[in-house]
């Protein structure tokens, strides 16, 4: 026994030794590791995107390669998304993050940000020329598409009372704008400017003034801040500004020239009377504040004074913003309400489809039976998530447009409606089989008795057969309805603001992943348990004493 244990232990140890080493925090560790893992975007042209063959290219990829050269190790590029880039860096999946990340005080709580900033941009709106927008104030209560994780989403939405529809991928948000699901696309002004150059966006423009110019920073783990790695990175950025490399890249990738880079090139090339560069490290090791115009002052006053509840929870190590932050709380409750509404809608639709489908499957006319069978089999044995994408992005884009209250044309059906349709159709297929089995289990005697009593086929079906069939299949039906409630989370993939979706908006910004995940788990468990309990009560009430 101990021989086997020793053998397996040795194999495990050898396997572990053969696996890649852990995350590196400073230059020595990186050189030991033999490579530097840099997180970049794959969905944000032209800073980080994929070419026709799926390879990662872009301005930030070029910067990553330059950094790796300065460190003296090969680079490994890892695609990250706005939702997970800070976590990926914090957990050690990547060593350096160059992923279009705007610097902010709240983000510095999660990871370290290197100054000087390598880029800066503001936020603007891509909207149709027809709208003739001129001021941000006109956007009150307007539906605006946005990309998940953008730092400006929450503050701009709050400031101008926007109704944000947030999408995981930029491409999805742009499809939605083209489908007229929203009035505009809230995004980085340089990215919008790049898009407006291409012919498919001819009818669109960037009409509003650019807001909130914010610096983009290269991210490092907190453990790496203050090490020689941070120094190398910030020196590299200084060098990029000084040598004009960033302006060169801007031109190479077709990005509209920004005032920020022009200013930085001038500042960093300025020399003092004695011939030294104006922007050099001072006695404290920092670059002068004037050379970092987009810097974040870490002594920023807290926007909200913490109340007693917040202080008590934080002293216990818990950050439950949904309890004391009005915006987060409102979003969470809205998500909960939408989940319940979505579940109800799907249940209604799927039961209706099930009843009709079961009837179709019982008809004598064979082609109708075949079509119904084909529907049932296809929708039962394909994943509901893919069906959802198929309906929302595929069929949804082909439907006609209608006049909305603001005079704009919008698509006929919204994300919520499509989620109800897709999940209802999916569950309806299973319900059809369940109801059909239940109906078939009603013995022929009952049919004959109904006929003998003078019931028409339709009346017999509705008043006698169906109620008996329902009791036959109640257990299976309950299981299926519970599955519907569990599946509502899929709607988050098409930006329906239900529970999973809003939770995924809250934790990347607040940094309270553990707390929100636990809240999510417990909430769903309670929701489903309540439904299961209600179903059991219903089962007991409907039971016919003595029936099989």
């Amino acid at each position, binding site marked *: 026994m101990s021989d086997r244990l020793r053998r397996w232990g040795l194999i495990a140890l050898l396997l572990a030794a053969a696996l890649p080493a852990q995350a590196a925090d400073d230059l020595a560790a990186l050189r030991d590791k033999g490579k530097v893992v840099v997180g970049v975007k794959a969905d944000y042209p032209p800073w980080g995107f994929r070419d026709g063959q799926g390879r990662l290219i872009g301005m930030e990829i070029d910067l990553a390669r330059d950094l790796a050269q300065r460190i003296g190790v090969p680079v490994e590029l890892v695609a990250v998304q706005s939702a997970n880039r800070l976590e990926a860096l914090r957990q050690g999946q990547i060593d350096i993050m160059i992923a279009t990340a705007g610097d902010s005080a709240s983000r510095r709580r999660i990871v370290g940000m290197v100054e000087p900033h390598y880029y800066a941009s503001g936020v603007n709106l891509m909207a149709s020329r027809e709208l003739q927008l001129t001021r941000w104030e006109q956007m009150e209560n307007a539906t605006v598409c946005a990309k998940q994780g953008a730092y400006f989403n929450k503050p701009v939405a709050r400031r101008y009372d926007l109704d944000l529809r947030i999408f995981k991928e930029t491409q999805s948000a742009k499809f939605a704008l083209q489908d007229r699901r929203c009035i505009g696309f809230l995004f980085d002004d340089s990215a919008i400017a790049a898009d407006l150059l291409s012919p498919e966006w001819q009818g669109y423009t960037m009409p509003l003034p650019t807001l909130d110019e914010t610096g983009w920073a290269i991210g490092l783990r907190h453990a790496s801040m203050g090490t020689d790695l941070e120094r190398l990175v910030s020196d590299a950025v200084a060098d990029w500004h000084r040598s004009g490399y960033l302006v060169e890249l801007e031109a190479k990738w077709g990005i509209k020239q920004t005032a920020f880079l022009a200013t930085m090139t001038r500042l960093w090339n300025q020399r003092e009377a004695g011939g030294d560069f104006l922007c050099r490290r001072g006695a404290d090791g920092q670059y002068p504040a004037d050379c970092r115009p987009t810097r974040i002052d870490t002594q920023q006053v807290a926007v909200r004074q913490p109340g007693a509840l917040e202080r008590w929870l934080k002293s216990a190590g818990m950050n439950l913003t949904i309890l004391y932050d009005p915006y987060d709380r409102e979003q969470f409750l809205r998500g909960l309400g939408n989940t319940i509404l979505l579940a109800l809608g799907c249940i209604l639709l799927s039961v209706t489809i099930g009843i009709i489908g079961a009837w179709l499957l019982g008809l004598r006319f064979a082609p109708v039976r075949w079509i119904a069978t084909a529907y049932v089999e296809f929708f039962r044995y394909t994943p509901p998530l893919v069906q959802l994408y198929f309906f929302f992005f595929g069929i949804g*884009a082909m439907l006609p447009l209608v006049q909305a209250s603001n005079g704009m044309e919008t698509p006929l059906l919204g994300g919520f409606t499509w989620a109800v349709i897709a999940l209802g159709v999916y569950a309806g297929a299973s319900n059809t089989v369940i109801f059909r089995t239940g109906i078939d289990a009603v013995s022929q005697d009952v049919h004959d008795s109904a006929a003998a009593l003078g019931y028409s086929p339709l009346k017999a079906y509705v008043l006698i057969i169906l109620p008996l069939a329902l009791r036959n299949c109640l257990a299976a039906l309950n299981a299926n309805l519970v599955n519907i409630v569990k599946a509502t989370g899929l709607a988050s993939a098409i930006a329906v603001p239900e529970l*999973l979706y809003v939770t995924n908006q809250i934790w990347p910004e607040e940094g309270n992943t553990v707390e929100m995940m636990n809240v999510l788990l417990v909430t769903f468990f309670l929701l*489903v348990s309540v439904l299961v309990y209600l179903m059991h009560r219903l089962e007991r009430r409907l039971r016919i004493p003595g029936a099989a």
Partner: protein
Amino acid sequence: MSATLATLWYWTPALALGFLMNIVISLGAMGLGTAVGMGVGLGRISTRPWVRKACWGATQFLRNTPSLVLLFYLAYLLPYEIPLGGGYTIPLPGWVKAVVGLSMPVIGFMSDNVYGAVRNIHSDQWDAAEALPLTRYQTLTSVILPQATPMLLPPWMSYFAVIVMASSTASMVGVKEILSSATIAMESITDPGLVIPMYFYVLCWFFLFCYPFSHITRWFERRKWQ
């Protein structure tokens, strides 16, 4: 039309590789979930009441929580790597987290099925085993489980198809499987006219793989009655 087919054909190798990942994740989830689930299911007939209650509670929790939420929970809270001390670590790539996440509903499913199957074994078998005499462990391994396990195979295979379909949700936590490969393809193509054909193509991949499992139960019944 032919341009559409050509594009779909061009992306087929990437989609096939993605679907292979779906299968790998599903097999891993079924393997891990079956092993743990059988333990939990047998724990529900344990002689110790606290073990029975704990296993019942775990089963209730796993069956009543959406697999998607469990997947998100584990994907974001499991660490990137597990340190073993001495500088050695075991990395936990995304697909491994997806395997653990998808094994949760399998555990619940197997627990319920094993419990039901074992309880279906006539009590005479238990009495005879006690009379022989066999210890509880010997009874379970030599008498009860060999009779209960064949009954589990048809629902197990049907559930495998269910898990393969559920593996598509791994795309929502960043795993490179068929749905995210299709999304990458859409990012590279940026032609709205290709959306319907691409997603229909992905649906067909799943249908062609999962549909045969629907006839498994009937095939097993026919074999038993031969």
